[in-house]
Every structure is written in C-alpha cells, then in structure tokens.
C-alpha cells in the first residue's frame, strides 16, 4: 500500500543560527505539500515574521490574513510574502512560534495557493495567532521553498519539516 503522508526532509538550525531555512530540490512526486515550522529568531524583539520565497522568487505573491493579538478585535489585511509569526529573542526562553503551511497541487500547472495557520507565544500580554490565504501567481511547479526571518537570524533549535501527500 502506498505511503500517502511522507516526510521529505527536516531542517534543524544548529548552534550558529541560520539566515534561512530552505527545502530544495522538491520532486514532483506528491500531490500536496505540508510544511510544519517552529521558529525563533535572534532579533531583539518579542516576535517577528517568517517570509516565504518559492523557486527563488519573491514577486507575484498576494493574499488575505486575519489575526488576533490576544485582546480586542481581530484585524484583517492583505499579505504578500508573509508566511507566519515567529518568536524572537525577547520572548520567553525556549519558546517558539509555530506554523503549518499547506500547498495543494504544488506541482501542477496552475497558480499556487497555500493555507497558513500560525501562532506566536510568550509569557506576556501580546502574542499572535493568524490565518492566511496565500497565492503565488506563477504556474511553475514548486521546487524550492525558503523561509527567512524579517529580522535577525533563525536561532538554534528552530525546525521545519516538509511532508509530501499523495492522492494515489
């Protein structure tokens, strides 16, 4: 029986930190991709953002987002290359932001949509959770996924695992 949900690769940031996390090459063997991310950065802040590029491109991205900060009314805005919240150096120690990103039909010939569920966490008054619908208006198969923090580097023990999902 075929394996339907299969780990493609895991990236774990070492003691020196990393400027980005990247998966390449990604074969066209599966139907969908699921990326699970746990990130903390070296930036002097409580939290920040993960930024995505696909196949080396940072253009032709669009989307919508809704997010809450732990109080008040959730906000909604548009996004381009935003790919989730992370924790930064001033967050509670050993705490990471977490995201799941789902890419349906990543190897097909249509524009590429993706779904993001994301949270940051710290023992403080402001943390974030968000949902986003992303679109990369490019018909190329996704062969490279790179995540980069918007400030600082990824800190040690940040991880990301890419899974492939087959429908047949």
């Amino acid at each position, binding site marked *: 029986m075929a394996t339907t949900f299969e780990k493609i690769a895991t990236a774990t940031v070492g003691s020196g930190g990393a400027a980005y996390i990247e998966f390449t090459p990604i074969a066209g063997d599966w139907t*969908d991709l699921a990326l699970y991310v746990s990130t903390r950065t070296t930036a002097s802040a409580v939290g920040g953002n993960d930024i995505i590029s696909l196949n080396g491109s940072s253009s032709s991205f669009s989307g*919508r*987002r809704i997010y809450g900060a732990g109080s008040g009314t959730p906000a909604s*805005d548009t996004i381009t290359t935003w790919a989730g919240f992370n924790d930064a150096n001033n967050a509670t120690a050993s705490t990471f932001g977490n995201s799941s990103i789902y890419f349906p039909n990543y190897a097909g010939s249509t524009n590429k949509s993706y779904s993001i569920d994301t949270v940051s966490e710290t023992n403080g008054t402001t943390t974030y959770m968000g949902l986003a619908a992303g679109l990369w208006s490019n018909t190329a198969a996704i062969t490279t996924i790179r995540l980069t923090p918007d400030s600082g580097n990824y800190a040690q023990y940040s991880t990301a695992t890419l899974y492939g999902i087959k429908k047949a």
Partner: protein
Amino acid sequence: MTVTYEAIASHTLVSDQTQVTFNPIASTWTDLVLVKTGGQSSGNMTMRFNSDSGTNYSGTQVFGTGSGSGSSDRYSSQGTMYINYSNATGNSVTTIMNIMNYANTTTNKTVLLRNNDSAFYVGAYVHLWRSTAAITRIDLFGSPNLLSGSTFTLYGIKAE
C-alpha cells in the same frame, strides 16, 4: 509499515459540475480530511452527509476580507452546511476540512474547516451535523457550479 494517512478517493472535474460525491465511505479510518482546490462560480459551496436534507446543520465562522476588522457569524437549523462563499466566478478557493470520529454511532459529528480565497477572504469554520449516524456519504454542491479543473480529495486517517 502501517499506513495512517490514506487517499480514499479523488475527483478532478473535467467540466463544470453542480455536485461532487464520495460514496460509499467505509468505516476503516478514524478521521477524514477533505481537500478541495480550484474555481467556483459566484455563490456558496454547500455539503451534506448521508443525503440528509433535514434541518440538522449549524456552524460558526471567523473570517477576514483583507481590510479592517475580522468578523464572525453563524447559521443554525439549516438543511445543508455552508462550506464557503465565492464572490466572483473563477476565484480559486482552497478548502481543507477535518471530519473527526466520522464513523462512530454515538455522537453528533463535527467538522473543522479552513477556507482560503486569496482574492476575497480567509476564514475558519466549525460545523455540526446533529446525527449520530456514521458518515458513509459526502455530497458537495456548487451554487450554481464547481468549475472544471477543481480537485476534491478525501483522505482517511487511522489512529493506530
């Protein structure tokens, strides 16, 4: 190796359709995941379990349209589940839903769902089907159409 995540069936539409059906659905798995991608005509996509058109469906969602504040609303005692809404024909709407403990015959059934339309809105929905029957059939309806090229894939997840 035990297979714990398995594709049960998949449909890729070669023409516009008003309905997509998964039937029968065996009770082999613990939970179900249904992934829909592709275009819709302007209007709602709805869903029924086991062909039940009684007023047994309810749901609550949070959503944002890309500006201002997020919103929340709900429906109750309806004859169908309101899965998503497309505001323009041709919008690509990706819907990912989790149907928990679908084969048990003791509890009502819950669906957790994420909707993604990068041109219109993003949201999350929880639905309730007030029936203790095992889910053996899923029908998805376009209003009026699910567009050619759309894909619908049903996965089964095993707890063992």
